């Protein structure tokens, strides 16, 4: 069963190559994101949509991405990207053992458990 997952990922690599080609044509193309790209991104995000939902998301994402295009008007040559509000350096602490959650309370919210572990559907056939 697990192999089916991998197969679908590699099948989608094809879709990705296609989208990269599309990206190059983007400037003269008014459509920001197509239905098949929405389907591909949904797969990456581990989501799935019905036909109608996919179409709605495609329209809405187009709207939003068209709006976001205004970023291209901002001059950013030589500006370093900012990833955090505060300049962060590594936050180190002494390597001392402190208390942590017990196995029991770690498992308390799990949908399914067996023994001291989380239980999931079979991964390998």
């Amino acid at each position, binding site marked *: *069963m*697990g192999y*089916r*997952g991998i197969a*679908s990922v590699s099948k989608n690599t094809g879709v*990705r190559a296609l*989208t*990269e080609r599309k*990206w190059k044509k983007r400037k003269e193309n008014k459509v920001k*994101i197509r239905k098949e*790209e*929405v389907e591909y*991104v*949904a797969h*990456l*995000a*581990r*989501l*799935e*949509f019905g036909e109608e939902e996919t179409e709605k*998301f495609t329209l*809405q*994402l187009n*709207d*939003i*991405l068209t*709006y*976001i295009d*205004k*970023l*291209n008007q*901002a001059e*950013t040559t030589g*500006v*370093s*990207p*900012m*990833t*955090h*509000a*505060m300049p*962060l350096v590594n*936050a180190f*602490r002494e390597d001392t053992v402190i208390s942590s*959650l017990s196995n029991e*309370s*770690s498992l*308390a*919210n*799990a*949908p*399914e458990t067996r023994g001291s572990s*989380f239980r*999931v*559907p*079979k*991964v390998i056939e």
Partner: protein
Amino acid sequence: MELNQLTIHELKEKLLSREITSVDIVESVFNRIDQVEGKVHAYISLLREDALRGAAGADQKIQEGAGGELCGIPVALKDILCTKGVKTTCGSRILQNFIPPYDATVVEALRRAGAVFVGKANMDEFAMGSSTETSYFGVTRNPWALDRIPGGSSGGSAAAVAADECIASLGSDTGGSIRQPAALCGVVGMKPTYGRVSRFGLIAFASSLDQIGPFTKDVEDCAIMMNVIAGYDPKDSTSVPQDVPDYRAFLNRDIAGWTVGIPREYFRDGMDPEVSAAVKKAIAVVEDQGARCIDISLPHTDYCVAVYYIVAPAEASSNLARYDGVKYGYRAENCRDLLDMYKKTRSEGFGAEVKRRIMLGTYALSSGYYDAYYKKASQVRARIKEDFAEAFKRCDVILTPTSPTPAFKIGEKTEDPLQMYLSDIFTISANLAGIPGISVPCGYSGRGLPVGVQFLAGHFEEGKLLQIAHNYERHAHIERRRPEL
């Protein structure tokens, strides 16, 4: 006056003089909840018995002459804050049964200060929204007009304070989620500097933007709450190890000689005329108090919403990858295999707005698009932060409207995500730059809807914000109305 209408500082005085007990306050709050909660729906869950037990304990402590800053005061918590042993849903189906095994650091701090928890307040699912309409547990209504939204995402926390269903509350602010609902519900709301308050136990939305802060009935209460929740926490590596001043020391001071920046980009045509008029009156009030108001420019203001809707969804798409149906939360049934389980669980567990943002973020971070979107947005973000740094060389604080309009109608913007996003146009910049902001009531629209004025200051200048906000509150003489429910 009912006890549920009073502020923390008023109640503390009565508690310490033994005029009333904490049980009296908690009973008053729950009486009010019994009367109005059916109309407002500010809460996802109520903690009536725990609160009464907590109040009895607080009364005992007060008898003994002990008890902290908030001893016996009923407080509401946004349902995004992990609360040990209490269901914490984040407004989502995917966490509908989640019972955290630990307290958020701010929850622990409130407990230590003696606060009594009334309940967990409603919110937009995963704090994604500006109207509290995306909650899996139903819409919260604005206490001032039940056909209108309370703002969001912390709409429940704001409405609960406005409707006297608690004395104060905590919310979280990623793009305006404290300040905008505070403005729309006519209460005080503060977003502290990024790193000022620990985010440990705050369910993550966008980690570089999220910050916890208080909703209160006045500015003095805001200072009291900030004294309890601010400070370094070794459990949050982004919290900043810097001393916390006594925020109450900034109250009752004048602002003579201050310079207040009025960013011209925040006063453009198209703003609601009633909001504009109320904010202009606020400018006159601070000038009357001896502050000099100057025209300033924040040139990259126009890009804030666009930057935010790349950065926040990108961080969200990665933060929300943890909801996979394995360790906690909802799991879909009848799944073929692990991948099928992930997809079904997430598709059934998340609502439309959360999915939209996960999609937007995943797309922006995906191969081929990263530079065009995430990198570009992060560069423009740096320029927005520079704008503020430049501005604060010329002024002590900045004054703006909190929201471009008063509360809009329920359902008005749900079909048009972009219009919804644009309602955060004046609040997003503070999160992108990491600076603190406060919203204070500054009047009412013709329909009687509250309007808020926002003050912004440089990093770790919450004291300045409280100083000017308190000064403004004392001298603005805004008519003290209460919502009719």
